[in-house]
């Protein structure tokens, strides 16, 4: 069976960024075909920790993260549901004096980018969060960061885009894409061919392969987060929690389950398979108890992983390809793209419709890997 489609924009990848781009483009009147090998929002967008935070990001990401933040409040209006987003605040813990110095330096830099963080000393941190362990010596709070349910957000953008008229094809694996001088041709399994003026590569862990088809250098490494969750416990972890070094992070959802992660699982993009690793889970458990001793003995009911793309400098590639100005990349979110996704969609749409974006994305140019 062969099917041919012609569209303004073809999108490879149905994560939050791709679906948000599809939605934004439809609102500006462009036709969109989006292809995903599986289900939209079931990849890195759907299996991550669910942190919606700006604190701790590279300063280069803060303008984009700042643009994303109000979109999270507006999810019901944008996509018809709130994705269980809650502005619980994000606390980054210091476990040594050196950590505390790092937090202080970061807070000063962040302030210059318009992000207000509140530093908390050793006594105040214990007053505010008496359930923290003795190794915690201080913290930095971003009161307006939060958390959301990653399993809901990506699919909600996909459905909103479909309602807006985007042609979204799930279970449709892209096999090749090429530029024919005027238009792009994207070929998917089952014989589907999509001809488009624009092509967006938001293929996550697989985006490096797509970039290579067009001669763009993209050293994308596979990143598999290592996540786990406990049975429901009485609610007490009021904030989303991270640490200096990033080796463990935890949040508790309203219904009581404690979600935690840290370290790397195993993943293989050729097999399209990812798994948490028992030693990683056990290490995360030990660190979790250090951070919040009361969690010792809580029953872990599930662990999971997924596949994301990681760049050598841990910030994404966003912007046009080197050889084809109408090829746009947005990938390599390096394990912290969840919060950015909705804004990335808008930025991609602006690049296509307006030819430029109001958000500073210079640091994300793919040319840095030339």
């Amino acid at each position, binding site marked *: 069976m062969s099917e041919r489609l012609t569209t303004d924009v073809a999108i490879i990848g149905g994560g939050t960024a791709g679906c948000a781009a599809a939605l934004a483009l439809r609102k500006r009147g462009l036709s969109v075909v989006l292809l995903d090998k599986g289900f939209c929002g079931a990849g890195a967008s759907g299996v991550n920790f669910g942190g919606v935070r700006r604190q701790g990001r590279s300063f280069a990401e803060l303008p984009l993260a700042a643009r994303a933040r109000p979109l999270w409040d507006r999810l019901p209006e944008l996509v018809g549901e709130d994705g269980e987003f809650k502005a619980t605040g994000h606390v980054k813990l210091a476990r040594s004096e050196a950590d505390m110095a790092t937090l202080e330096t970061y807070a000063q830099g962040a302030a210059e980018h318009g992000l207000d963080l509140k530093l908390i000393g050793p006594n105040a941190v214990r007053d505010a969060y008496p359930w923290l362990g003795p190794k915690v010596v201080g913290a930095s709070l971003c009161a307006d960061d939060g958390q959301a349910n990653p399993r809901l957000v990506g*699919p909600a953008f996909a459905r909103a885009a479909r309602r807006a008229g985007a042609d979204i094809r799930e279970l449709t694996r892209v096999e090749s894409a090429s530029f024919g001088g005027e238009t792009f041709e994207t070929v998917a399994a089952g014989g589907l061919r999509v001809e488009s003026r624009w092509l967006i590569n938001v293929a996550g862990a697989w985006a490096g392969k797509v970039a290579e088809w067009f001669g763009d250098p993209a050293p994308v490494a596979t990143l598999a987060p290592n996540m786990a969750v*406990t049975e429901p416990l009485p609610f007490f972890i009021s904030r989303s929690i991270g640490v200096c070094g990033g080796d463990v992070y935890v949040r508790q959802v309203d219904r009581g389950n404690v979600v935690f992660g840290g370290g790397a699982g195993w993943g293989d993009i050729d097999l399209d398979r990812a798994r948490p*690793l*028992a030693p990683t889970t056990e*290490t995360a458990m030990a660190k979790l*108890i250090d951070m919040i001793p009361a969690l*010792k003995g809580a029953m872990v*009911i*599930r662990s999971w992983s997924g596949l994301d793309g990681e760049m050598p400098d841990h910030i994404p590639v966003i912007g046009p390809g080197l050889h084809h100005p109408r090829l746009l990349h947005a990938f390599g979110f390096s394990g912290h793209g969840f919060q950015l996704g909705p804004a990335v969609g808008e930025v991609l749409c602006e690049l296509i419709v307006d030819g430029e974006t109001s958000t500073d994305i210079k640091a994300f140019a793919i040319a840095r890997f030339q």
Partner: protein
Amino acid sequence: MVEPRLVVIGAGPAGVRAAATLARAGRPVVLIDENMRIGGQIYRQPPPGAERPPEALYGFEAAKAVSIHRALDGLQDRIDYRPETLVWNARDRVLDLNGPRGTERLVFDRLILATGATDRSIPFPGWTLPGVFSLGGAQIALKAQGCAIGRRVAFVGTGPLLPLVAYQYAKAGAEVVAVLDTSSFLTKLKAAPGLLTLPKLFAKGLYYLAQLKRRGIPIVEGVEGLAVEGATAPQAITWRHGTTGGRIECDAVGAGFGLRSETQLADLLGCAFAFDDLTRQWLPVKDAEGRASERHLYLAGDGAGIAGADAAELAGERVALTLLGDLGSRVDAGRIAMLDRGLARIQRFRRAIEAAFPFPHRFHASIPDTLTICRCEGVTAGDLRRQVDGREASEMNRLKAYSRLGMGRCQGRMCASAGTELLSHWRAAEVGAVGRLRGQAPVKPIPVAESSPGTMA
């Protein structure tokens, strides 16, 4: 040559026969089991101090039970038996254990999975009330603890376990108020010729029924619309039967609709699965000699498809011989042929059993929206249908992601069957086409702990 590390998971009839066969061939073997004592569910032994005579515990099967319990006698020097130990994760050639010694990693070369089965549930109004047990649970209460689930007990569902458990309760002195079978007399009659392939087993089933009738216990066949009444405990059970119906008072209910294989470890180890139309379950693929798709893995017993305890014993020995052959040992071809003939005979009987006691999957079409399907997460049938309609959930893992079905303590072991059937009926799609839940560690919950385990290489 270094002796390969051989591991058997599960100490029911399949695992015990497998381990004994390996040990008798001179191979050291690690036998891991969640229970305190060997026997599995079918030949479960009471905890120390609560023993009773085998005849009282296992009835007709007493000799088989004793034979399994004694199967490892004299082989202890070659069998590293690890009771009360959960294999909570498995990947490549590594098992993650959680037991009396804490957590531990065990590296293996070849593994026999004999993980057994649990009851298959169908939700009906009242099924989550305290006092409503699975059939297997009701049987274990009697066998292991010597107690009944209630004073006036109704048994409902279908399958060979239904009359057996009812009979065991009646014999133990409990008042069995009714046996309600969802399979009709006509359905069973049609399957009778196939059931006669194993006349002794067939006769046992008839004996249990006759004993129930002799005691004046009402047996209703072809029931539908089951519901348990009661606010905090069962007070009565009601049902429909053709154009009429019935109601009988009770204070406990045992309900079961056949068994489902415990396949999580096979899944975590990457075994290929196929949908079995006969039993409407996803099962790990195995070849005629018991090898899984991953060549260092072997499958035996009910964990690889329900066939019962007799088949499990044969299959356990059979895969052990396959494994020994794969290691280059000489194995007795005559013995293999005999085991294969026995397994083939039971398989024919099994098909007749499935025909006589079909899984009443159509019940899922009429489950009311308010009924809880996933108990751990409190997900109702209406919640699931709303995910299908509103969020376009067309596949089980999507349904799980949106609704939380199967995300709780049981990880879908108890609710995935009902969820799959409900999704299939609601979308009018084949049940084999709506996918299966991906297995995730831990197989059963494990505690957040400080210690990082050592590896037994």
